[in-house]
């Protein structure tokens, strides 16, 4: 019997697919370690992980900037090594660092990019106006980009990524270094994209709220590997309704053993001195958890109840905090 749900998924087309994708820089630096990615068309996929996890290297391979050491990757069925130039026709990218020529104006930046892709003049001019309007840079369009603020630069880059009407758009840390208002703006544009264009989006981020807010599917990446993958909801739900985070000292083993078996505990994880307990109702269960700690001579230094987030998921699978700078 074929599971009808799975069949449905398999029949949907993949925009990005990788198999054992690996990049080794020096003999001992494995930046990307055998990752399997599958991103369905017209969805948003977020690679979430700390700096140095291998997200940018993954994007570099998918956008044909560097070649994989081993394994393969396909964009809309085109191999990134064999059909690199066709892949480039299909994709748009914004890079982690701001990559704008300071001497060009916003309009010139877009025009130059569109011409690199061979887009004819009438179409180019129409799209430039349309995109300048979308990212609200009409007034600044004829100023040199060196006069732009960080948020304006990011918005211009987003417009540049879109001007070629890419079927797959890669955004590497699209909101890094932006203030909350500018972040919200960029999120809004990304959501608009999803709503009215048939574009697949792969973005990387180290902000868990960004992944939660935008992505249909999240892959948590650490040390070159995708550790866990799922929709933000799925990932968060497995943590329990509420998350209790405890740090302390004393007889940790006894405390852990006894707290794990409490009937309301839905998930449990202990790594690097932080104990995470997923419970059905945090505030109500706090007392019982503290009692268990006292009984087992475990001294609580810090205890916090929160709605679980992708950060807690990250902590659970990597044993480390994903700092949300």
């Amino acid at each position, binding site marked *: 019997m074929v599971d009808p749900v799975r069949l449905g998924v398999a029949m949907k087309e993949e925009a990005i697919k990788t198999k054992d994708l690996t990049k080794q820089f020096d003999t001992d630096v494995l930046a990307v370690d055998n990752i399997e990615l599958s991103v369905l068309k017209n969805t948003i996929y977020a690679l979430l992980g700390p700096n140095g996890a291998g997200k940018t290297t993954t994007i570099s391979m998918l*956008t*044909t*900037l*560097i*070649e994989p050491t081993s394994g393969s990757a396909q964009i809309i069925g085109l191999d990134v090594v064999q059909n690199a*130039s*066709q892949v*480039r*026709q299909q*994709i748009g*990218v914004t*890079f982690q*660092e701001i*990559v*704008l*020529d300071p*001497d*060009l104006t916003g309009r*010139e930046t877009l025009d*130059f*990019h569109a*011409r*690199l*892709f*061979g887009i004819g003049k009438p179409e180019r001019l129409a799209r430039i106006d349309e995109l300048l309007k979308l990212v609200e840079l009409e007034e600044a369009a004829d100023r*040199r980009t060196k006069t732009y603020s960080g948020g304006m630069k990011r918005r211009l880059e987003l417009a*540049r990524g879109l001007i070629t009407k890419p079927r797959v758009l890669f955004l590497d840390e699209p909101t890094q270094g932006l203030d909350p208002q500018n972040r919200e703006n960029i999120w809004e544009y990304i959501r608009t994209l999803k709503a009215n264009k048939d574009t697949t989006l792969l973005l990387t981020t180290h902000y868990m709220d960004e992944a939660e807010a935008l992505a249909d599917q999240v892959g948590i990446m650490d040390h070159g590997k995708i550790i866990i993958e799922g929709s933000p909801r799925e990932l968060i739900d497995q943590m329990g309704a509420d998350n209790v985070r405890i740090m302390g000292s004393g007889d940790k083993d006894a405390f852990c053993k006894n707290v794990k078996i409490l009937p309301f505990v839905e998930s449990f994880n202990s790594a690097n001195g932080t104990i995470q307990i997923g419970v059905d109702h945090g505030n109500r269960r706090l007392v019982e958890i503290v009692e268990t700690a006292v009984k087992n001579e475990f001294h609580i230094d810090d205890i916090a109840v929160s709605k679980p987030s992708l950060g807690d998921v990250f902590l659970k699978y990597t044993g480390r905090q994903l700092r949300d700078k």
Partner: protein
Amino acid sequence: MNATFLLWQKQMKKALVHPEEIVGMLIQPILWVILFGVGMRSLMGTTTPDSGNDYMTFVVPGIVALTAVSAAIAGGSTWLNERLIGIVKEYLAAPIPRLSILMGNATSIVTKVLIQSIVILIVGLLMGAKLSDHPLGLIGGLLLIAGYGIGFSGFALAVASSTDSSEGYHMMIFLLQLPLLFLSNSLYPLQTLPAWMKIGAYANPTTYVVTGLRQITLGAAPTMGSIADIPLWLCFVVSGAFAVFGMYIALRAFIKAIK
């Protein structure tokens, strides 16, 4: 081809944005002719009545070569900068040939060199240099310079592609620049050089470009020794081959850098 043109256009536009770059670009060769050319000219002028003008005629091609090398170095520096701040990634992710990215840069460097060469020629003429009466004198000369400029731009782009530090770039380019300029007949006649330097000069494309210019573009400078020992056709072949070789090593270094 189209992409080469686009990148050429972008680099030219960027140069036009900075008036100080244009002014410097035009003043630098004038200074060379006036300060170096005239200074040397007065030294030479003491031997025979004609030798002053002869040296001016003789040294103009040398100053052209020197200017081409400086422009290529500046172009390589721009390229290194574009690589370091990541602008090159925009080109790399676009569906254009890798070579056209480099060609766009090299041709924009050469455009500047050709403009500078014409300035040098004009100032040189004002200072006593003589033009040849060859009908293709100017066109032929510009072709020779273009080949040389692309070739040395290729070297500069190759070096700028294989290092991540500005200091490293300038150090390596310095090692290339000195012998290329001075191990040639650009500033002094071949005949007066010691044997080992002559061998080096014959192996140096600068010698051929400079000699070619002396044969086709500039007038004769009898007191500066004979230039007929290298045929004109060979000058064109060497200039063309140098251009191809320069771009080849630039492409190789670039592809290695993005692997």
